[in-house]
C-alpha cells in the first residue's frame, strides 16, 4: 500500500471544559459516529489556551489543530472566549507571516448542546486533512523569492546642533539633584552619567541608534536613583507602553525628548515621529525624513507576496543563522520578564537549542509576546549578529493590530492594550 493510502491524519483538539468538551461528550453519549483521528486536550477555557500549544502540537507531529470553546456570550468565565478570539485574530496573522499552512488550523465555537456540530466539524476536518496529507512542510527549507534586506543609510558622523543644549540641560539636572543619573548617548555607545562634570560625555548625533528606554528595566540602573533618559521620538513610544503596563511611574523619570534628524536606520526612511510628544523637555529641531533617493523596498509586502511554503522556507533560512544569543530580547524595552519563557526548564517549554524547531518556537514566542506592544524601534533587527530581519514579524503584528482593532502601540496613552482587553464586536472570518 502506498503512503497516502495508509495516511491517517493526527488532529489535536484543544477544547474548553464547559462547552466543547461537553459537546464532544454529548456526541459520544448520543452515539454519533466521528473519526477517531482527533486527540482531545481539555483546558479550563479557550482564554487559557496558550498560543504555544498550537505550535507544540505541530512540532510533535500533528497534521491539524482544532481550537474550540463556548459561543460568544456563553463563556463560563464571562469573557475568556472574547480574549481568546482577539488573540487568535492576531496569532493567526503571525502564523500566516511565518508561512504556516492555515488550512490546518481550525477554530470553532461548539456548545455543550452541539454534539452534532462536533461530529460534523471533526469529520470535515479529518477529511480535509486527509486530502492535504501529512504536514511535512513544517519548518521545511526550500526555494523562496528574495525579500529585499532593510536598507540602512549610515553616513559619516554628523553632530546635531542640540548637543550643547543637551549637555547643559543634563549638567543642570545633575547639579540641582533633580535626577541622580542621566542615561544618554556617548561617543562609543550609551553612557550612564551621574556627575554634572561628566555631562560633556553626552553626544547627540546620527549614530545614536539604541533605544535607551530598555535600560529603565535594569536592576542596576534602577538602583542608582531617579533617572533622566534621552529619547528619540520613535523610542519615546516605549514609555507609553511601559507606563500602561505599570512598569514605570512617569513622574519618577525625567524624559528628555530630542527633535530628531534621523539616524540612518531603515525605520528613519519613513518615520513621521520626529517631534517628541510626551517628554518633560524637548530639545533640538526635528527634521523631516528626507525623501529617499530610491523608493524604499516594501519588505513586508515582498514577504507576503510569496506562497506560505515559500515564506516558511524564507524563515527557515533566516533562523538557520540564529545562535540564540538573545540580543533581540535583551535590547527590547518591552522584554522585561524576570524569567523569560525560554529559560523555563522544569519542564522545558521551548527547545533551548538553536535548532530549527527551537528557533521557530523562540521567535514565535518573542514576536507574539510583543503583539500590540512593539513600538517598532527596530532594535531587534539592528542587534541581531546574524542579520535576521526580525522586525518583519513585529511589523506583521503591528499591521494586524491596526487592521483589526485600529490600534497602534505607544501612540495613545489612554488606549487599552490590545491583548488583555476585548470588544464584543471584534470581527473575524475564520471561526465557524
Amino acid at each position, binding site marked *: 500500500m502506498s503512503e497516502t493510502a495508509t495516511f491517517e491524519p493526527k488532529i489535536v483538539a484543544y477544547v474548553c471544559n464547559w462547552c466543547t468538551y461537553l459537546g464532544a461528550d454529548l456526541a459520544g453519549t448520543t452515539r454519533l459516529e466521528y473519526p477517531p483521528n482527533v486527540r482531545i486536550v481539555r483546558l479550563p477555557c479557550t482564554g487559557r489556551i496558550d498560543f504555544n500549544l498550537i505550535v*507544540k502540537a505541530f*512540532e*510533535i507531529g500533528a497534521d491539524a489543530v482544532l481550537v474550540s470553546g463556548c459561543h460568544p456570550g456563553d463563556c463560563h468565565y464571562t469573557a475568556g472566549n472574547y480574549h481568546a478570539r482577539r488573540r487568535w485574530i492576531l496569532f493567526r496573522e503571525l502564523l500566516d507571516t511565518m508561512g504556516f499552512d492555515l488550512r490546518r488550523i481550525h477554530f470553532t465555537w461548539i456548545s455543550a448542546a452541539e454534539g452534532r456540530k462536533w461530529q460534523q466539524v471533526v469529520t470535515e476536518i479529518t477529511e480535509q486533512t486527509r486530502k492535504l496529507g501529512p504536514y511535512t512542510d513544517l519548518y521545511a527549507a526550500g526555494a523562496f523569492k528574495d525579500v529585499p*534586506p532593510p536598507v*540602512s543609510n549610515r553616513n559619516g558622523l554628523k553632530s546635531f546642533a542640540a548637543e550643547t543644549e543637551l549637555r547643559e540641560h543634563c549638567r543642570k539636572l545633575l547639579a540641582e539633584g533633580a535626577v541622580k543619573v542621566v542615561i544618554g548617548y556617548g561617543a*562609543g*555607545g*550609551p*553612557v*550612564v552619567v551621574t556627575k554634572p562634570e561628566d555631562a560633556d560625555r553626552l553626544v547627540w548625533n546620527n549614530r545614536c541608534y*539604541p533605544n535607551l528606554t*530598555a*535600560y529603565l528595566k*535594569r*536592576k*542596576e*540602573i534602577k538602583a542608582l536613583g531617579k533617572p533622566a533618559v534621552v529619547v528619540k521620538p520613535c523610542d519615546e513610544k516605549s514609555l507609553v507602553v511601559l507606563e500602561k503596563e505599570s512598569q514605570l511611574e512617569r513622574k519618577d523619570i525625567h524624559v528628555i525628548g530630542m527633535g530628531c534628524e534621523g539616524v540612518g536606520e531603515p525605520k528613519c526612511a519613513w518615520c513621521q515621529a520626529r517631534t517628541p510628544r510626551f517628554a518633560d523637555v524637548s530639545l533640538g529641531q526635528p527634521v523631516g525624513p528626507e525623501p529617499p533617493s530610491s523608493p524604499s523596498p516594501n519588505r513586508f509586502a515582498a514577504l507576503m507576496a510569496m506562497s506560505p511554503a515559500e515564506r516558511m522556507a524564507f524563515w527557515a533560512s533566516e533562523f538557520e*543563522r540564529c*545562535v*540564540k*544569543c*538573545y*540580543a533581540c*530580547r*535583551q*535590547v527590547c524595552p518591552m522584554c522585561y520578564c524576570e524569567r523569560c519563557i525560554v*529559560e523555563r*526548564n522544569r519542564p*522545558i517549554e521551548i*527547545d*533551548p*537549542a*538553536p*535548532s530549527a*524547531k*527551537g528557533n521557530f518556537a523562540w521567535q514565535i514566542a518573542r514576536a507574539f509576546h510583543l503583539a500590540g506592544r512593539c513600538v517598532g524601534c527596530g*532594535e531587534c533587527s*539592528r*542587534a541581531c*549578529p*546574524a*542579520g535576521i530581519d526580525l522586525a518583519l514579524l513585529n511589523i506583521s503584528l503591528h499591521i494586524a493590530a491596526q487592521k483589526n482593532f485600529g490600534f497602534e502601540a505607544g501612540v495613545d496613552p489612554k488606549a487599552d492594550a490590545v491583548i488583555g482587553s476585548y470588544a464584543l464586536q471584534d470581527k473575524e472570518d475564520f471561526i465557524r
Partner: protein
Amino acid sequence: MSEIISQNALRMLAAEWLAGGKAVAGPVRIKPDLVLYRALRSADDLLLEEFQRPPNSIKEFLFPKAEKLYGYRVRGNSIELVESDAQERVQILIAARPCDAAALPILDHVFNWDFKDEFYNRRRAATTVITLACNAHDESCFCTSVGLGPASERGSDAMLFDLGAGRYEVRCLTDKGRALFSGKTEKSDQVGNVPAGPEKKFDSETIRTFVTEHFEDPFWKEHALTCMGCGTCAFSCPTCHCFDIVDAGPAAGNARVRTWDSCQFATFTVHASGHNPRPAQHARQRQRILHKFAIYPEKFGEILCTGCGNCTRNCPIGLGVLSVATEIDHG
C-alpha cells in the same frame, strides 16, 4: 621564490574539493551588508575580497552551536541510549582570518585538558585551515595587542596573500596544507606583503594585573552599567567555548544536545537552590575579562583572545574586550 595561484585556479580547486565530497566553508555574502563564514554550496559562493571580518567565527565548524551527543529511546521504564552516528567529513576552511585560525590551538587546550572531547577532536583532525592574510583592519581590530598580527601563521595549515590582480601567494605551513596545494601552484618571485596591523591599543600584561588585583574595583560596576546582557560577544568570539547540555525532548527527536552558552546570561551560573554567585551584570562582565586575561593564561599559558574585535564590533552598544581593556589601560 614563492608559490602563487590565481583566483580562478583557487576557485576551481575549491570546486574540486566540493566535488570530491569534502565540506568546504568560507566567507559568503548573505546580504549586501552581511558576510558570514558558511558552508559553500558552490565555489562561486566563496568571497575572497571586500570583506573585513565576518561577525561569526570558524569555531562553529569544529564546535557547532548545537551538537547531538547521543540519542535516547524511552521504552516503558527503561531508557536505551543511541550513539550519535554522525560521520565526520573531511573539511576545509578557506579564507579564514588569521585571528580565527589562531583561536584553534587555543581551543585545543581546553578540549583536551582533563577530558578529551572526541567530538571536537574528530572534527579538528578532519579539518584543514587556509587563512587569508589581512590587507585592512577596522577600528575594532586589536590583534597586535594580544601578540598576533595581520599575517600570523598560528593555527593555519596554509596562508594566502592577496597579490592583487586576482593572484595569491600560497604559503603552506603544515603537511595538511601542502597536501591541498601540492602541484596546484606556480613558481613566482612575487612575495605577499601585508600592511602593518592595527596600532597596539593596550598592554595585555597590564590587563592581567588589573583583573587579578582589582576584583572588587568600582570600575566593573561602572563599566557594565550599559551592558544589555545578551550573548553576542561570546557567540561571535572565536575563542569562547562554554556550553550547556540540554535534553531535547520528543519534539526534537529525543537527543542530548550540546549548545553554546554564554557567561553573560544570568542563568549561566544560577544554582538549583536559586542562589546565583554572579547575580549582577558587572560580575558577568568581569568574569569574561578575567577568564580571558588571567584564568586561562594561568592554566594554559596563553590569553583567551585573538584580538579579532568581534565582541565589540557586534555588541549592540559597542562594549567588549577592546572597550574594557583600553579603559583599564588608559584610564
